[in-house]
Every structure is written in C-alpha cells, then in structure tokens.
C-alpha cells in the first residue's frame, strides 16, 4: 500500500459516522420531547452551538484566533432583521440564506486583512472590525434602530407552512434543522482533502506551504465559510427572537463564544455544541446564585480552565466517557482529543 492511499484510508476511517455521533443527534432531537417547556433556552443553546461551530472552523481547524467573530453574527442578525422588517424577503429560509451570504461577503472581504500578520495583529484586526461595525450600526441608527434595536419584526411562516409560535416550538425545530444541515456540511468540509490541508496549515504553515498547499487561499476560503456560518447563527437569533440590537456586535459576545468553544474543546466539531450546553447551564446556575454578578464566575471559569490547561482538562472530562466506550465497545475510544490541540 502506498503512503498516499494509506493517508486516504485513515482519513476515510476517521470520517465515518460513529455511533456516538448518531446518539448525540438523536438525544438533541429527544430533548424537544423531554423538556417541552424549555424551548426558548434550548433554541438559544442550539443557536450558540452553531455560532461556536463557526468559530471552531477557523480556530480549531485553521488556527486563526479571532476576538471579533461577533461581527459576522451581527451582520447576519441585522441582515435577517432588515429583510423581514422591510418585507424584502419574507420567507425565513431564503432570508436566512441571504443574511448568511451578506456575512459571507463581509468575511471574504475582511479575510484578506486577517490572514496578514501574526496572532496579535489578527486579534487586533478582528476586534477592530467588530468594533467598527458596532460604531457604524450606532452611527446609522435610522437604519439599525440604534440602541433600541430593530423593533416590530414580524416573521412569516417557514416555507409558508410552519408559523412561529409563542412557546418557540417551531423556532427550536427550525434552528435544530438548520444547525444539523450546516453541521453535515461542516463535517463534509473538514474531512475532505481541503479540511486535511487546513489542519496541516494549523500545525505548521511553513511546512504546509512547502508541500504545495496554497496557504493564503485556503485560509481565505475557510474564513469566508466560517463567516457564513456565523451570519446564519445571527440570522437565526433575529428570526427566533424577533429582535436585533447593538449588542449583537459586542465584545462580550465574541469573548463568551471563545469560552463556549474552549469548554467544549476545539477541532472536533462537537466542541461548540457541547460547550454551548455546558455554558448555558453554567450561566443559568450562576444567575440563580447571583443574578447580577454571574459574569464574575464565568470569568473565574475561564481563568481556571487556562490555569489547569485546556488539553489536560479535556482528558479529564473525556476520561469517563472514554472508559465507558472502551468497556462497552471493547475497542479504542473514539471521542479522543485530536493531536496538536488548538493554535
């Protein structure tokens, strides 16, 4: 067997659906029937999971650290809101795609700024772009509604069939379906040769360039795709809450997003989804203990995670599930933390 086909064999092995993944998605769907009174928070989790998935694509797979991912979220949110408010595209699914495309265009344009320079410059540029958009949204308050946000958004039925209801049931299934479809796409992307080349770039850009991977083109491509995902997450936010305000661009949103992804772990796609569940639960717990100061404990969690070390933490968290899998299935644990964690 040649080396090349060997790599292809392993890549295909890795790309196969594992039964744990199927269980995960069935469980996600099952939640809808187990907790019928919690649609709103579950929608929120799904949305956040999709947003974190988008960051995972650039952070976990391409190693781009971004402090301003909320920029694309915000563009998607305002895009969907404005489309619905002015009745340009009333059908939610098409509006969703349009808002995602708007964010994608922005992602494509800004990617050329982001791929230049080192980590620090990237941090500053991504942060600067998000702040710039926030300032713009505040400046053109006649379009965006300023600090009051867009008000009076009325959503039409999805595909002209399913009306958004008060309890958020439609919104939840809609968000879950969109997230699942986009997850499938992301899964296909990261297991393709394109995705493998991204990992090569993350691990060592210089070597990747030396074996003939067009580093900058690949980074532009994945950044654009991630912007599309974030835009969709933002559009889902507006469509399911019928609200879009200036805080969609806020720094806290980008920072929280990083925490979500770090809790779940980068570089295996489920990190964002799992992290979103854990993050929202933590937030719920902390806000019941101290309604006003939950941010303190969120900050403490971040500090502890970093001090303990992200890699070590994931080994601890995955120790039990891995043990169960090894005992039950009698083979190598599948839910492992990938090599070369993060940038």
């Amino acid at each position: 067997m040649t080396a090349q086909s060997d790599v292809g064999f392993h890549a295909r092995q890795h790309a196969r659906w594992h039964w744990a993944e199927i269980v995960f998605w069935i469980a996600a769907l099952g939640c809808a029937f187990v907790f019928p009174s919690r649609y709103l928070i579950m929608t929120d989790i799904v949305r956040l999971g999709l947003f974190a998935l988008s960051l995972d694509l650039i952070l976990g797979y391409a190693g781009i650290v971004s402090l301003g991912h909320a920029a694309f979220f915000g563009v998607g949110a305002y895009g969907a809101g404005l489309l619905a408010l002015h009745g340009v595209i009333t059908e939610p699914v098409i509006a969703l795609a349009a808002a995602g495309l708007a964010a994608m265009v922005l992602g494509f344009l800004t990617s050329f700024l982001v791929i230049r320079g080192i980590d620090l410059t990237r941090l500053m540029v991504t942060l600067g772009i998000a702040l710039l958009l926030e300032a713009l949204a505040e400046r053109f308050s006649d379009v965006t509604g300023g600090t009051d946000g867009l008000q009076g958004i009325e959503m039409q039925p999805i595909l002209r069939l399913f009306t958004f209801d008060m309890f958020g049931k439609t919104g939840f299934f809609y968000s879950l379906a969109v997230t699942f479809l986009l997850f499938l796409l992301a899964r296909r992307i990261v297991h393709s040769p394109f995705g493998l080349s991204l990992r090569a770039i993350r691990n060592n850009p210089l070597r990747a360039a030396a074996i003939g991977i067009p580093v900058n083109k690949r980074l532009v491509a994945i950044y654009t795709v991630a912007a599309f995902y974030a835009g969709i997450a933002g559009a889902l936010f507006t469509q399911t809450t019928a609200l879009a305000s200036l805080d969609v661009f806020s720094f806290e949103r980008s920072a929280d997003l990083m925490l979500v992804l770090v809790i779940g772990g980068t570089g295996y796609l489920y990190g964002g989804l799992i992290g979103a569940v854990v993050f929202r639960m933590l937030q719920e717990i902390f806000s019941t203990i101290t309604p006003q100061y939950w941010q303190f404990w969120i900050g403490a969690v971040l500090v502890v995670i970093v001090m303990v070390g992200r890699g070590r933490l994931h080994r601890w968290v995955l120790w039990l599930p891995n043990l169960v899998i090894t005992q039950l299935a009698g083979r190598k644990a599948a839910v492992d933390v990938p090599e070369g964690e993060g940038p």
Partner: protein
Amino acid sequence: MTSILTNLFDGVAYGMLLFVLACGLAVTLGLMNFVNLAHGAFAMAGGYVCAVLVNRMGWPFFAGLPLAFVSAALIGAVLERLLYRHLYARSHLDQVLFSVGLVFMSVAAVDFIMGSQRVFINLPSVLEGQFDLYGVGIGRYRLMIIVICGLLTALLQLILARTRFGSRLRAAVDDPRAASGLGINVPQVFAFTFAFGCGLAGLGGALSAEVLGLDPYFPLKFMIYFLIVVTVGGSSSITGPFLASLLLGVADVAGKYYVPKMGPFVIYTVMIVILIWRPNGLFGRTAVR
C-alpha cells in the same frame, strides 16, 4: 484658531494620560509578548483605591495618587507571581482567554463592591476651572496631567536608557536565555517590570477618573485604546507608544469635536489600515520574535 489650540491641548493631555495608562502594556505585550487584555483592570483598581481614599477617608488628592500607584503595583505583583508567570510560554489564545476571564471577574467584583455608577474623585479647588493663556483656554486639571505624565515619561526614558535595571530589562527582553546566562534574574526583572507597569496604570486610572470616567466597565471600554497604543506604536522603545498615544489622543479629541458622529469610526479605520500597512506598528522593529 483658539478653539483649535484648546482642542490640541486637550488632545495632548488625553494622549499623555493614555500613554501612562498603556505603557505598562507596552512592556508586557510588546516586549514580553504576553497578550494582557486585563491591563485596564489594574488601572481601574488604582482609580477606585484613590476614589475611596479621597472621597471616603478624606485624604488629599495628591496623597491618593501615590497610593493608587502602590496598590495597583501590589495587586500586579501578586497576580504576576500567582498566575501570570505560568502563562508566559503559553499560546496567545490561552493568554487571551485568561486575561478576558480576569476582566470579567474584575468588572463584576468592582460592580459588586462599589456599585455600577460612575465615580468622581473630589478634586482640590486648585485644580478646578481653567485659565486663559493668550486667549487659549487651558484646563488646570489637564495641565497637571500633562506635567505629571511628561515627568513620568522622561523618568521612564532615563530609567530604561541610563540605569542598570534598564539595561537588565533590555537584555532580558532581547534574549532571555543569554541574559540569564549572564547572571540576570530574568523572572525577577519581568515581575518587577510587570508590577511597575501595573502601578503606572493604577496612577493613570486615578488621574483619568475626571477625564475618561471611572466605572466598572472601564477595562472593557478602554481595552481597545490601550491595544491601539501598543500595536500602533510598536515596541522597540517607549518613544513609539508615546507618539502613538499622543496621536490617538489628539485624533480622538479632534474627532469627537469636529465629526462627533464619526469619532470612533475614524480611529478604528486608521488602526486597521496602519496594522495592515505595518503589522509591527508604525515605529516597530521589522522582526518580531
């Protein structure tokens, strides 16, 4: 004409203040290569210490300022020994996460202890109001800021260029391994520098309560300004950040005065353009480790 000069004066005062606030960050971020987004938290700590001393305990303002420096430096030293020093060698992502966590904690903690409203420090009557100098309105408080910050800048330059500690620091930054081989206690030098930078930030925080406003969200609001000063100014000397903060101060004041609605927009755009054009800063070295 006079309004231009007054604006220029205010801008210079603002810029000087930004420099004192951010020059500690210039060392940690620029020289030690540690992305410390929590730098504003130390400034806020100094500001609140000064506010408590002056407003509640009746200390004179000028006695509160050194205490702001000392307390922020102490907090900085303790945190450096306990937490920061473990993270020098980590990835930028880890450092960002850690310092963002610290910012969140400090915001919530100060909100809890001091309340969320803006804090004013009672100023002595000497510093209030403004006087005319050839028709240019000069605020007394801003004049004091310029004097204090100007002296500090000169002092910093002297320490860095002329003293033994300055040369140790420069050696430790240029090549930590070679420096420790020469018998320089590199971690100690870094710890001391870090604490000193935090102290300066604390002093700046106390001075800025009147100009920038002091509330629990201070670290978040001004984080981007500190980062701009350091990244645009580069890190090869303190002259770069100094010029960058003057530029930023003047541009911000002028922007708020002449194009009030486009102010922040202009600054962020200029920052992005400069970073794209010169990724290591306007006055930076070409090679960054």
